[in-house]
């Protein structure tokens, strides 16, 4: 059981949990994720470690509600516990001195690029972050990123804040800006976004690393469910990744594999929403969001 120290909404349907997990915290490197389970009979789901504090023994998770398990996690409050947290898992990001690195994060993908930004900066890179959200309320971790990046460009689909348009639009501007050439791009977020990022950088032959999010079970290499095709070869994202050369990833296959359980996931989510105890708990958590945003 892992004690939650702090729980707060970062955006509508996106919640941050700071959880006590000292062993994970002391071994965390950017790029790592954990496998989380939040009730008996619950699913195991992968979540990126968005931050860690080895002294306090805590890790930070940023969770977007897309189904039953993420909704259960987002109903939790400080003082409660997460049943299982296993990690850190996956290969850490290869932190090198590239020169100018652009990090592109979409939605909760921003939680993946945040620890990368700090690490890349600390080895002497110039770091630019491009982060996207549907509208202003959905842009997350902007202040945190500003503290470690040379420049941060928030983007909103509806133009309500920062650059009006998709992150790829802003990225295109950056890679075409001859005065400040881009040496590497790291990206995390929805699959279509990562695919579009890869398209922008492929033409310019800029090294691009994408953090993939296939469906996982164990996260330790045992099941092969997380397999993705990279450069025509089968790779297990939890052991060989989750970061891969974006120019070689078969994104269409990944998109399709993510739909494998859609009907059953929806049924599970519908059952959860009918559960009165959960409903009451979740609504209480949601009220905090309304209160915090007025």
């Amino acid at each position: 059981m892992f004690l939650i120290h702090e729980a707060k909404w970062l955006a509508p349907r996106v919640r941050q949990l700071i959880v006590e997990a000292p062993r994970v915290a002391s071994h965390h490197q950017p790029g790592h994720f954990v496998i989380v389970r939040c009730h008996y009979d619950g699913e195991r789901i992968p979540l990126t470690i968005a931050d860690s504090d080895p002294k306090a023994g805590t890790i930070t998770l940023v969770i977007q509600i897309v189904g039953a398990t993420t909704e259960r996690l987002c109903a939790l409050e400080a003082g409660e516990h997460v049943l299982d947290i296993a990690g850190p898992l996956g290969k850490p990001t290869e932190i090198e001195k590239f020169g100018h690195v652009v990090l592109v994060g979409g939605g909760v993908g921003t939680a993946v690029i945040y620890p990368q930004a700090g690490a890349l900066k600390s080895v002497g890179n110039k770091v630019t972050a491009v982060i996207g959200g549907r509208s202003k309320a959905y842009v997350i971790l902007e202040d945190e990123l500003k503290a470690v990046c040379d420049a941060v460009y928030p983007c909103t689909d509806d133009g309500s804040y920062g650059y009006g348009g998709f992150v790829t639009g802003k990225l295109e501007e950056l890679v075409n800006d001859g005065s400040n050439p881009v040496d590497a791009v790291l990206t995390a977020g929805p699959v279509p976004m990562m695919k579009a990022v890869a398209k922008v950088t492929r033409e310019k032959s800029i090294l691009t690393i994408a953090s993939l999010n296939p469906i996982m079970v164990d996260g330790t290499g045992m099941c092969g469910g997380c397999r993705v095709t990279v450069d025509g070869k089968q790779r297990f994202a939890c052991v060989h990744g989750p970061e891969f050369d974006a120019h070689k990833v078969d994104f269409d296959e990944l998109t399709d594999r993510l739909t494998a359980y859609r009907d059953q996931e929806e049924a599970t989510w519908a059952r959860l929403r009918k559960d009165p105890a959960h409903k009451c708990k979740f609504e209480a958590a949601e009220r905090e969001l309304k209160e915090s945003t007025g």
Partner: protein
Amino acid sequence: MKPAERMKIPRQTMPEQEAEVRARNFSEVNLGMALEVARREADRCLRCKDAKCVPGCPVDVDIAGFIAAIADGDLPKAADIMYEANVLPGITGRVCPQETQCEEVCVRAKKGSAVAIGYLERFVADWARENREQIFTPPPPTGKAVAIVGSGPAGLTCAGELAKKGHEVTIFEALHKPGGVLVYGIPEFRLPKEIVKSEVDALRQMGVKIECNVIIGLTYTVTELLEKEGFDAVFIANGAGLPIFQGIPGEHLKGVYSANEYLTRVNLMGAFKGEGSDTPVIKSTQVVVVGGGNTAMDAVRTARRLGADPATLVYRRSRAEMPARIEEIKHAEEEGVVLDILVNPVEILGDGDGWVRGVVCQRMELGEPDDSGRRRPVPIPGSEFEIPCQIFVEAIGTRANPLLTQSTPELKLNKWGNIEVDEHGMTSIPGVFAGGDIVRGGATVILAMGDGKVAASGIHDYLSKGG
């Protein structure tokens, strides 16, 4: 009783759930023997002086001894003898391939059938579980601490043996539940999870600590365990690991599973409970499984229980070469599993929407013997045919998991990535031992347990010498 009288008693049978009934549920197939039946079976044992069965047992159970105690009705004694050598008898009594071990060499097998050693082992374990409060009494502590990586049969056995000697033992397990393959792989209908739990609890009662959600190589390295976390020795038993896929076209399709994933979803994650579990598994009426081992049998029988009709097993060699336990093959057939022998899948077909719609197979014939001494299956040209299915499960083996070994580069590996050990189970790093599937590649529960025992005695000697 005179030997001639013993010889007259026929081998007793194991009561089973009816095939038609059990093919639709996940309860255990074998129901266990009644006391009188077990005693009668025990009377068949000739109590050989130089018992051939004992060397046939990888953990040296005093077979003649415990069987004699059953025959005498002294079950506490039978249990003492059993637990002295084997800390997981409820498990081994259910999953060991006795027909190639103790029962193969039993003298009674020469004329008729062997003593049902496996069934009697199970009988004693079940009795002990129900009738004994404390199965072991721990000795005074030695002050030495040992870390064990992985809670499969190798890790559990090593833990039990070390605890018997008074060492402080902590098992680190990557998953959220202890047991390794015993909980994520082998299904409920063959090995009820309650049995695993109670044998694990018995170890806990002896003082063995089990910490789940810890991945050695990531949460801690082996070096950290020794240098920072205060352990005097480490036993690595992290199992086999990564499933092998055949590498045929179509493996990215939805509906293609490794047996590990299929079984983990259904067993460990509880997908067999339907709405009771959050973890889904694709539902399908036609399922094809490829492979000939216990894993393949478990996958296909699981599919059958989830409603597959037909549930087909394809295997590229002949029936005689199937590595699965004979009882599993028999049970599978009784339950209506279709065995299609000398058949090899060559391509998985998609329906255009990313789902599996069938598998193209090729018929095989047996040619010259290969390296393993078995006749090599060779494809018959032009024999391709299609089996419709919506789930295709590959159960063709696993390869070594690199998570731990890559974080410990000093650890000497063989060319397949398996850890090399000496006759005491010690690796190239002093104080670090290994055993089970990570050393052998995919093997058996009892061989993993044998390794756990060897390593425990190796570790004990190492610690006694001040290591």
